């Protein structure tokens, strides 16, 4: 038994953190709000591909690092910390391992182009009611239908952007796809693939939510330690202290569930789906608690778009209910528990 990241994992995460601090500043996130059609930050995507983050789960033969979900999870946490406007969950955490493990050999052969960053895939699971993020920038779509998971060329389907009713997070361009599933685009093991993709997307999103939460908490601690009212820092008031302590509590006890799920999902553990749901439920709830505490403790300044907090709040609100909200995932746990 050893429940901690190993030195390699910690070093990789620290290195990524340094890179992101330089290359994914709040200005970069803001810039992604204006990029049309949004591919998020393309420069950042190149960097992440070159570092091996995108292809972490791809085999060495496919140009990847051949590592496991547990190795990726703390990198997704770092990506969440800076609200990185890139599709790491869709591509690195879901598409690459899903195509590698469950795709036809032809489908699996696209993994190399995904790993080197030259090609993207966007994910459309049934649970997200057909809403896809960044479809316009993706060559292929990994789409779930009743018969399982399909890999479909974006050019072959009708993509309807949701403008002007887009995401409140301006770096996310949403679309709905109209298509008719045919057997030739199915993955080799389509239903198992769909289930695994859901679990991986849930765990990856949970990790990003934890990272977002950590940043919102850090920003808030910084702000309330400086901001004075009634002659003292507002962070010296017990009400704010306790609210932030509760926010930390929620986050600290969500994280181990996320790390555990990353391990067992990668291991194809029989309980992996339950673990993934525990992770997403706890991370969604924690992020919601942290976000509201952060906004309340900032007061009016948190309510302005000139201040950076809103970038993290809006990403959080988007991801909280993406790939199943907390109630949906608790229900999945409950069915395993109570039948």
């Amino acid at each position: 038994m050893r429940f901690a990241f190993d030195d390699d994992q910690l070093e990789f995460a620290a290195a990524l953190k340094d890179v992101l601090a330089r290359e994914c500043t709040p200005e970069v996130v803001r810039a992604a709000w204006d990029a049309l059609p949004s591919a998020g930050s393309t420069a950042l995507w190149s960097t992440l591909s070159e570092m091996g983050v995108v292809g972490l789960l791809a085999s060495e033969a496919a140009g990847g690092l051949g590592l496991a979900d547990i190795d990726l999870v703390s990198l997704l946490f770092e990506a969440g910390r800076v609200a990185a406007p890139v599709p790491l969950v869709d591509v690195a955490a879901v598409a690459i391992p899903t195509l590698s493990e469950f795709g036809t050999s032809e489908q699996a052969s696209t993994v190399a182009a995904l790993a080197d960053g030259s090609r993207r895939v966007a994910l459309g699971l049934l649970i997200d009611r057909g809403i896809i993020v960044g479809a316009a920038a993706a060559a292929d779509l990994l789409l779930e239908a009743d018969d399982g998971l399909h890999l479909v060329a974006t050019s072959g389907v009708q993509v309807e952007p949701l403008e002007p009713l887009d995401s409140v997070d301006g770096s996310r361009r949403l679309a709905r796809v109209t298509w008719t599933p045919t057997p030739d685009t199915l993955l080799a093991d389509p239903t198992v693939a769909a289930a695994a993709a859901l679990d991986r997307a849930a765990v990856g999103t949970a990790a990003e939510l934890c990272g977002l939460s950590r940043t919102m908490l850090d920003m808030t601690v910084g702000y309330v330690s400086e901001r004075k009212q009634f002659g003292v820092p507002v962070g010296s008031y017990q009400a704010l202290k306790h609210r932030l302590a509760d926010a930390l509590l929620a986050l600290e006890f969500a994280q181990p569930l996320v790390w555990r799920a990353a391990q067992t999902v990668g291991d194809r553990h029989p309980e992996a789906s339950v673990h993934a749901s525990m992770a997403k439920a706890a991370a969604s709830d924690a992020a919601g608690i942290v976000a509201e505490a952060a906004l309340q403790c900032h007061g009016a300044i948190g309510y302005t778009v000139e201040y950076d907090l809103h970038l993290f709040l809006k990403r959080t609100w988007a991801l909280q209910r993406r790939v199943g909200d907390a109630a949906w995932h608790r229900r999945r746990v409950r069915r395993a528990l109570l039948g």
Partner: protein
Amino acid sequence: MDLGWSDDESAFRNDVRSWLEANVPAEPLPSGDTAEGFALHLDWEYRLHAEGYSAVSWPTEFGGLGASLWDWLIFEEEYYRSAAPQRVTQNGIFLLAPTIFEFGTDAQRRYYLPRMSSAEDLWCQGWSEPNAGSDLAAITSKASRDEAAGGWRLSGQKTWTTRGAFCTHLFGLFRTDPESERHRGLTYFLVPLDAEGMTVRGFGRLDGDEGFAEVFLDDVFVPDGDSDPARGGTLGDVDQGWGVAMATTTSERGLTLRSPGRFQAAAARLVDLCRERGLDADAVSDLVADAVTRVWIAAEAYSLYTLSDVTGIVEGRSPGAKSSLNKVFWSELDVELHRAALDLLGPEAELDGPWNRGWQFSLSGPIYAGTNEIQRNIVAERVLGLPRVGR
């Protein structure tokens, strides 16, 4: 206990309902916190005023209908039920006007109130400063005496001024006694935004609207008292502005800003959303449906609590510090209401539509008009009587 309405009240309700049905725009107006939207909202204000509906409880000489508090409640219920436009005049009509009624001179009442109900003058509030948010008494904007000109010269900065960029006048506190500290030595000023030395800069709000403004004052002249209302003036006694302002913030926190009709109408829309989405058989929907029910019950409780308050006011009992209970309750009810809506929408919750905008706006409720932390202190100390020592 009498839970019914009189014939006259029912007739008034019918009149209001018919008028609203005939006049409320079929399509919601664009947000009044943008320039285009604000203009459309002004048109609406003119139509309300023509009917006497812009300030129903005011005397007719000031542009109202002289309606009772009960009629006001009825009006508000119908207004929100009809999904009529937001009131871009609310800072004036609901926050400043009660203070003018209480502290203004006859001349001030006669000058300002009719212009306010007709939306000729549009007021924004100048409470907060960069270092005076929750701690309103930390105000540093100052007014220096100009004895020769018979007035004051104002300098400083105000911020978080809602719709400041679209308004014509500002009300707020300035330090008239340079030696004073905290809540002493402040005076309540009324200032036209086109006065020389005023600069207004709009900036963006979380929900995407440019609803906030910063206001910079550089040696702005304001005459004494009611000597020349068209150029502004002071409200109440010099150096006594804190007491005058507290009357306004009480009305901000109390009945006037958040009529129960607003939450009952919003809860009804939530119930519609819930029905529309359909309740599938699984447990997620049960949880959300329970949340919707909680919200509905809370909106009913808020309405009954207000009826109880209004009964008290009509019979001469003041709600006092209990208005802080109101503010905490409605602001948190509003958050829960929108949370339930987003939960119903699931993956579609992130769309930049009315529910997500409403969610973001609802989150400002526990912050503005005195943060809920401060309101809970007031409840604990002034209603429960807990000791004030400490923070």
